[in-house]
């Protein structure tokens, strides 16, 4: 629709026998890549805020000046504080998310393969999916202690449910005719799972992982806001309570970048692993 072009005014009615070119009406409705569009939107938006805050029609209480946010980021990097916050955050994210994803994929595959497991666990997963996991943090603190392990558990638990749902959906969607082919050639059950079901479920699992990792970043910040010395969440919370908008936004920018990087990483894996897709 975005590609709809304005057609010139309809040609004047032609004489009965005159040759006339057929009007083209097949355009639009196709997504085309426009690489330069995203940077333009970013640049225009940031430039608008920069000009707005400089000229004063956006008050400094509403939004910080983008150049100041950048300066804060540079300063954060130079003082070494950036890594002081980034390293613990990334560790929590990596440990929690991989734990949740691994357990989630395993449970999802089991649900997809065994009808007893499906009957038993699908309602359970549906029951725990809508629970806001942050509400359970106090409980996790009691179960796993105040230190890192309760944060790992929270992030793992949050990534677990969407991963399970995506994985068993993906296993269900594996082409049955391929499984039947495997059986007809006398492949063992284990071979069918490893060589047909798992690769066939890969596209669905990876697109589920995209969502799970975004949720993991959200939970990471939430966990750090509730109790951590270091970490991006703690940094943002501290900045917020001092109403230091530059630092708050610097933290938010780091989170956005983290999201873009994880999504890009999954895109890269998809391109490598799923090159067979048409």
């Amino acid at each position, binding site marked *: 629709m975005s590609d709809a072009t304005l057609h010139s005014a309809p040609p004047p009615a032609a004489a009965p026998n005159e040759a006339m070119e057929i009007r083209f009406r097949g355009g639009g409705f196709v997504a085309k890549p426009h690489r330069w569009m995203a940077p333009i939107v970013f640049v225009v938006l940031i430039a608008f805020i920069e000009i707005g805050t400089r000229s004063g029609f956006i008050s400094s209480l509403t939004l910080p000046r983008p150049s100041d946010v950048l300066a804060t980021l540079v300063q954060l990097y130079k003082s070494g504080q950036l890594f002081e916050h980034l390293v613990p955050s990334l560790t929590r994210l990596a440990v929690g998310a991989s734990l949740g994803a691994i357990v989630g994929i395993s449970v999802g595959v089991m649900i997809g393969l065994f009808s007893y497991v499906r009957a038993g666990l699908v309602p359970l997963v549906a029951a725990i999916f809508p629970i806001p996991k942050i509400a359970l943090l106090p409980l996790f603190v009691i179960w796993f202690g105040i230190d890192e392990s309760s944060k790992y558990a929270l992030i793992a638990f949050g990534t677990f449910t969407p991963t399970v749902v995506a994985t068993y959906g993906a296993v269900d969607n594996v082409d049955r005719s*391929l499984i039947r082919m495997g059986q007809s*050639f*006398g492949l063992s059950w284990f071979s069918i799972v490893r*060589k*047909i079901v798992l690769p*066939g479920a890969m596209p669905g699992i990876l697109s589920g992982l995209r969502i799970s990792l975004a949720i993991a970043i959200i939970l990471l910040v939430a966990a750090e806001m509730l109790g951590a010395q270091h970490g991006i969440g703690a940094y943002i919370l501290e900045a917020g309570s001092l109403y230091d908008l530059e630092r708050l936004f610097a933290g938010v920018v780091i989170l956005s970048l983290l999201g873009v990087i994880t999504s890009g990483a999954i895109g890269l894996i998809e391109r490598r692993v799923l090159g*067979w897709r048409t």
Partner: protein
Amino acid sequence: MDIRLDGISHYYGETEVLRDITLDVPSGQIVCLVGPSGCGKSTLLRFIGGLERPTKGAVLQMGQPPEGCLNPLTYVFQDFALLPWRSVRGNISLVLEDHGIRGAKADKIIADVLARTKLSDFAKALPKQLSGGMKQRVAIARALAVNPAVMLMDEPLSALDSQTRELLMDDLIALWDRQPFTAVYVTHNLNEAVRLGHKIVVLSRRPGAIREVVEIDRPLTERSFADADLERTQKHLWTLMREEARAADEELLDV
């Protein structure tokens, strides 16, 4: 190794789909099953390969499969059933890996079947790069790799356009001529049946029962594109099926 179908009847719930089918598939021959759509011919094929069980009757294997036969009853499917994430070579090695055949021994088998199906140059290609006819040739190569005693072909050419179908029929005849194989060939295309079948079994509409068995003595290699005798046989088959095909077409599905 021969196959005998012994009094097979089958029900889906209350619906009788097959009635008392008794049939011999002698080794070295291609037996074609034809019939109106929904007569249960594909179901019958799934019984023969052990993918489904009939309500009554049994499929018997007469004698032992020949030496070196990895998967005696091997299917060729209408939709090819190739793994899209494996190359042509990988798709064939898939069915060898489970028999512990890897490395040089597997390479030898794969090279042989690819040569027989004229695919030697495409070993590294992915299925998405291949045309429909090529995909089915890969599936046939994969079936040949396990050295089957009986090939079970479920409308193998139905997803292809008519020119590709002609070419593949020639390929199948050449393959059979080089090394006669046993096959049960399900099709709704009567032309395929008279070109490839030594024995053509006409099934009636649901419940599917054997209406007539037509034998064609002429060797496969001598059956050409528009042969008058074959045309006559094909016409005879069509008169047998015509009314039933119409009735089957007008039937409401309540599945």
